[in-house]
């Protein structure tokens, strides 16, 4: 105990040293004034002291857990809450009904602002589900996912401003354009593995933004495209309020559609090929899976959803400019997938809702939002790498290997 406190004091001292120049001193190089903010040191000291005690306790627990796993002890017979939620019809049926009701009446009872935020959150749910295919199922780390989102949004923006295309024609076109770009960009990087892939996709993400910013004639550059119409309903005139409510319902349908498709795909031939590719590329290819086709389809499929989400994003905002498509958005979608649990659909949905809605409702903390994201990403990887709700792999039931026979 005393030892613990002593170590935490040392940690606190170290962090006071570490944060001293950045937290305390603030230089105004124009007026040549130095501002000393000594009070910050106190916060750092207290904060790091407490955190280091919590950290050490959590690390001990983590070690205990991995030790148990090593010794082959069953960690817990009881399945986790998330899993129970999914598997026990007694629990999930009422939950589902309540959820459906809440979803249906939500835009009718809240004001337009909240409905609008919810639409944004749902857009990120779709983005998360899409990236979940590329990263979670196929294991292809994509740090430039936002590029496909931009492709979708700009497909609608450009088609509308040049040719007057409506929302409903642009929606599938946006998705297809996204998929097309997924394939085009996927081609050169087929042979690359993990880390190389990460940097090249990151490069593609920034290239997309640069091209949009500088190609004035088509994309209107940094000024962006304005006056993009909201989704129409057989040409009916709608107030902003009804239009938002309408967009919300479209979004709900799209999320359901995305859930349905990704869920079905997971257990399909191509879905199993993706997972096999993620687990071991060489073994997978040796088993006769066409590597190029599988990888490209994973890219195209992930990008397809981003394209669809992009079209809706453009119509929700009625205005798009390159600043909506930065690396921050890619990182946000990636953290949604990671936090939700890679490959887990329900986890991704929950994570998207939490990550988008939380900062909106905790306005006071919105400054700290990215700081928190960063910290959460690190902590999740260390303490709960499987995500909020772990993806449960389907196994063949009823085929228990009897080990005694093997010994006899």
């Amino acid at each position: 105990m005393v030892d613990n406190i002593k170590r935490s004091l040392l940690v606190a001292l170290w962090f006071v040293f570490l944060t001293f120049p950045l937290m305390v001193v603030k230089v105004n190089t124009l007026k040549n004034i130095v501002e000393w903010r000594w009070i910050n040191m106190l916060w750092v000291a207290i904060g790091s002291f407490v955190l280091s005690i919590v950290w050490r306790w959590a690390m001990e627990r983590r070690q205990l857990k991995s030790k148990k796993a090593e010794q082959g002890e069953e960690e817990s017979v009881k399945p986790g809450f998330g899993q129970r939620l999914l598997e026990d019809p007694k629990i999930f049926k009422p939950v589902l009904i309540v959820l459906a009701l809440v979803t249906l009446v939500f835009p009718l009872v809240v004001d337009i602002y909240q409905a609008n935020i919810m639409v944004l959150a749902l857009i990120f749910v779709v983005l998360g589900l899409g990236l979940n295919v590329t990263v979670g199922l196929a294991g292809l780390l994509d740090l430039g996912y936002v590029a496909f989102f931009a492709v979708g949004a700009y497909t609608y923006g450009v088609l509308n401003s040049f040719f007057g295309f409506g929302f409903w024609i642009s929606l599938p076109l946006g998705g297809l354009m996204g998929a097309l770009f997924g394939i085009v960009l996927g081609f050169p990087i087929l042979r690359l593995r993990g880390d190389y892939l990460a940097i090249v996709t990151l490069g593609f993400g920034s290239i997309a933004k640069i091209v949009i910013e500088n190609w004035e004639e088509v994309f209107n550059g940094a000024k962006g495209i304005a006056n993009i119409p909201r989704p129409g309903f057989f040409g009916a005139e709608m107030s902003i309020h009804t239009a938002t409510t309408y967009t919300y319902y479209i979004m709900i349908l799209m999320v359901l559609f995305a859930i349905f498709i990704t869920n079905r795909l997971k257990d399909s031939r191509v879905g199993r090929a993706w997972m096999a590719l993620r687990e071991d590329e060489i073994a997978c290819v040796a088993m006769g899976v066409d590597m190029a086709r599988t990888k490209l389809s994973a890219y195209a499929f992930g990008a397809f959803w981003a394209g669809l989400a992009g079209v809706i994003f453009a119509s929700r905002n009625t205005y798009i400019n390159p600043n909506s498509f930065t690396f921050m958005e890619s990182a946000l979608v990636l953290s949604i997938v990671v936090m939700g649990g890679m490959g887990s659909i329900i986890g991704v949905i929950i994570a998207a809702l939490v990550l988008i809605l939380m900062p909106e409702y905790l306005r006071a903390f919105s400054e700290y939002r990215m700081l928190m994201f960063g910290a959460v990403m690190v902590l999740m990887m260390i303490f709960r790498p499987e995500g909020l709700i772990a993806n449960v792999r389907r196994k063949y039931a009823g085929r228990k290997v009897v080990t005694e026979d093997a010994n006899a």
Partner: protein
Amino acid sequence: MEYFLELSSSGLVRGSIYALIALGYTMVYGIIQLINFAHGEIYMIGAFVALIVSGVLTIYGFSGISILILAALIAVIYAAAYGYTLEKIAYRPLRNAPRLSPLISAIGMSLFLQNYVLLAQTPDFLRFPALIPDFEFMEPIAHIMGSPELVIVVTSAVSMVGLTVLIKYTRIGKAMRATQQDMTMARLVGVNVDNVISMTFIIGSVLAAIGGVLVGSYIGQINFYIGFMAGVKAFTAAVLGGIGNIPGAVLGALVLGLTEAYAAGYISSAYEDVFAFGVLVLILIFRPSGLLGKAVKQKV
């Protein structure tokens, strides 16, 4: 011809800076196969610490070269401390985790450090004092290569030679090479692998901080976001040269810097990043292991 020389000099300067940062990436990657995404942030923190120190010293009446040396020294110490702490918090617990985990943790750390500096200091660009003095003997060719450029290129070259000596001839260098070849075996023959990895992060951070101070003084302004792009570029350089390969990182950085400078000068400065990544993609298509990297056969 003069224009060409000007561009070459600017490309050389960029390349030297990229090389300083890229070495940190490549060393860490060589040893633990991790893209230390937060490495660019260490460079940014180095620049900020140098700015703060030089600001304080200017106000308290220090002058000229003493500010440069003190600011650089303190920046280097702090960057090393940050690099060490970073590894200990974000990467050490994930030593045996799947490949994707430390990478995501690194992205998280990068976001965290960026926003930490943003909140602790300011989101605006800060004016960075020109710390590098003007030399008289550079006067005749100042329009092609001025004193700051010369200092940057020379400092980078000296740091790289220093690094090479360190890795080739010292005890810790030997331990680093051993760990790079086979971590388990190095442990078996008594190398303290954890210390070696910490040391790698510290050395990489020191180089990055040197780059940060030089760049701040050269460009004249910094903000919390400079680390991101510099980090991406430097990593691109490291990949270009064959990641894990130290001379490769330097070569890749020079190729990248010159490409960018020529592309910006002859074609369009708005598209220089496009060319940088374009070169990367091209080289990776035709030589997936980089310019100097050895193709690694994966064993099953």
